[in-house]
């Protein structure tokens, strides 16, 4: 149905080579038999009908992820990255009542089970147990009227038939694990009594209380101070090692995933424009949009006063996605390919540079390499 990249030599199994590129390899077409990968998303579409038209938040996204690995999904707001994660959790319709419900299609396989076609109550049982999520703003994501402990206990007891006391012990244990001092006291504190970093730690504790196999962190550090950001990222990494979960980190900030992710997926206008092993995407990016993202990323090794180079223009309308390459209106190289092709034809995701690295750009590999090495990289 959609553009499916060819296999590029990396088999999609759990036995991961040292390069760590296996997580993002080829994905089977929708309707194919159950995959062997831990998480596989096939041709995901999430559309929201609105008064102004159909908003295509996610429009044909595929990827896979193995246990113990971390995938970073990067993009601007409105690129569809958050909707993707909600779609996986089965929460894309949350808070929507009435006639206009979100429409979702494609397949999501988790541990051999397809979620989109499954009984919603089955999916609910998976939520919080098999897969759990950390949200970007822990202040608003925690219920302000209940204590931290109560919220963690509740998360534990939904899926485990235990007494409150047992659950409370478990909550304290986890609070301790995520580095909250005096957890036996803090367990009775309210969210507003915590600092931002502490709140996010508590949020993580809540997400991990049932030892989930998939952890989705949606902008986990955006709302936090820079110093706290690093601590939280360290924590996520440590915990992943300890629990062996698969992790998806969603962010608009490449810096966040730079050290955390094994693989990267760059989204633009509801689609994937580039994906591949993290170092490949970082050091040999193959899409002008990724270049833009790299350019706008603050770096510690750079003079802070230097002006960042943002991606010019604003994100595309998801109702009337620009024809051809969705990025063309903002792309400084839109006229490099011939025949106006960037405006008429949508570029497919294709292998770029090998090693599981894919990109959706009309420019040839040579042109891209040249521009990157000659024009972009020196400025970064």
């Amino acid at each position, binding site marked *: 149905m959609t553009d499916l990249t060819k296999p590029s030599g990396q088999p999609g199994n759990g036995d991961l080579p040292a390069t760590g590129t296996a997580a993002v390899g080829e994905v089977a077409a929708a309707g194919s038999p159950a995959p062997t990968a831990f998480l596989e998303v096939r041709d995901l579409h999430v559309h929201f009908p609105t008064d102004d038209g159909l908003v295509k938040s996610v429009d044909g996204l595929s990827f896979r992820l193995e246990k113990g690995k971390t995938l970073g999904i990067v993009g601007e707001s409105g690129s569809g990255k958050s909707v993707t994660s*909600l779609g996986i*959790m089965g*929460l894309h319709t*949350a*808070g929507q*009542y*009435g*006639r*206009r419900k979100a429409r979702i299609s494609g397949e999501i396989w988790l541990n051999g089970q397809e979620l989109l076609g499954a009984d919603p109550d089955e999916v*609910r*049982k*998976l*939520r*919080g*147990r098999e897969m*759990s*999520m950390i*949200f970007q*703003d822990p202040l*608003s*994501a*925690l*219920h*302000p*009227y*209940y*204590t931290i402990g109560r*919220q963690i206990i*509740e*998360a534990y007891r*939904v*899926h485990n038939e235990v007494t409150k006391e047992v659950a409370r012990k478990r909550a304290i244990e986890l609070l301790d694990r995520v580095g909250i001092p005096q957890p036996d006291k803090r367990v009775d504190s*309210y969210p*507003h009594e915590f600092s931002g970093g502490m709140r996010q730690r508590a*949020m993580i504790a*809540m997400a991990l209380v049932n030892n989930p196999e998939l952890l989705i962190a949606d902008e986990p550090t955006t709302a936090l101070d820079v110093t706290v950001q690093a601590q939280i990222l360290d924590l996520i990494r440590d915990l992943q090692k300890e629990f062996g979960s698969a992790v998806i980190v969603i962010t608009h900030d490449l810096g966040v995933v730079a050290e955390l992710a094994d693989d990267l997926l760059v989204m633009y206008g509801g689609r994937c424009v580039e994906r591949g092993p993290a170092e490949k995407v970082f050091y040999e990016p193959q899409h002008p949009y990724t270049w833009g993202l790299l350019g706008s990323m603050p770096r510690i090794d750079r003079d802070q006063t230097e002006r960042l180079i943002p991606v010019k223009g604003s994100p595309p309308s998801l109702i009337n996605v620009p024809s051809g390459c969705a990025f063309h209106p903002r792309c400084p190289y839109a006229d490099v390919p011939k025949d106006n092709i960037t405006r008429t034809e949508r570029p497919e995701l294709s292998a770029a540079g090998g090693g599981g690295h894919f990109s959706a750009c009309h420019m040839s590999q040579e042109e891209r390499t040249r521009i990157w090495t000659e024009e972009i990289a020196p400025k970064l």
Partner: protein
Amino acid sequence: MLAYLIRRLFAVVVMLLVVTLTTFAIFFVIPKWAGSDPALLFVGKQADPAAIEGIRQKLSLGDPVLVQFWHFVQGLFVGRDYASGTDVTHCPAPCFGYSFRTEQAVWPQLTDAMPVTLSLAAGACLLWLVGGITTGVVSALRRGTLWDRSAMTVALAGVSLPIYFTGLLSLAIFSYSLKWVNVDYKGLGDDPAMWFESLILPWITLAFLYAAMYARLTRATMLEIMGEDYIRTARAKGLRERAVIGRHAMRSTWTPVLTLLGLDLGALLGGAVLTETTYNLPGLGRLAVNAITEKDLPVILGVTLIAAVFIVIANLVVDLLYAVIDPRVRLG
């Protein structure tokens, strides 16, 4: 907590002083400014100068307004003595003085009327909170459905209907034509069944207006809350929808409802005035309206003060409830 209470009490006292002083000003300063003699408002049929002077002395209208005000405040706290020719009458605290018209002590009149208004207000309040919130929640959860649209249309009609019109209409239909209910008020202590029967229509009339407002508010709040991050979190935990709504969403709807309740308590007396007038209930609202037409200042002062005290206490309770509901609210 103690500091908070002291501060609140201070605010309450200031508030009550302002209310009293304003009422005094309305009935003593404005007529004077408009060129008429307050004593003339209270003199009977034979208003010869001697009688007017008598009135002036009796009501101590000769004193400056602030002195009269001071005597009034004194009376409230320590009682007051009235010389009545033959002997001195002691009016024990809280002394609201004696009616200019009937010469009866005001305090017993207030305590007589209070249960009526409280019955009306409490019953109606209960009715509208239960009715309004339930309707609002159900509408929010069934947003866009026929139920939602009809409930919201009725609610909008409800907030657009004048109390006295619905009152008259329901009186005409249910009391006079169908003779289903008797509306002659009896006290709860005298005749509980009759008390209930006589208040059914007033309760519904008063509650209908407010229920409509609360239904609209609850619906809007609920819709907003259902989009909150923490509701998403609750779902992400794998909670059943019932728990999400019952435990997480409902708890939050109370805050705006309380805010509105705090505001409405101020306006409730207005609603009571109209309801009591329409249904002929012998409550504070009607007492006040009669006193205003009669320019019976002590009674007016009494009712406004009682009303203000009630409002202030209710607001204090609302604020305390905030703290109970929302742990972020610190009293202090």
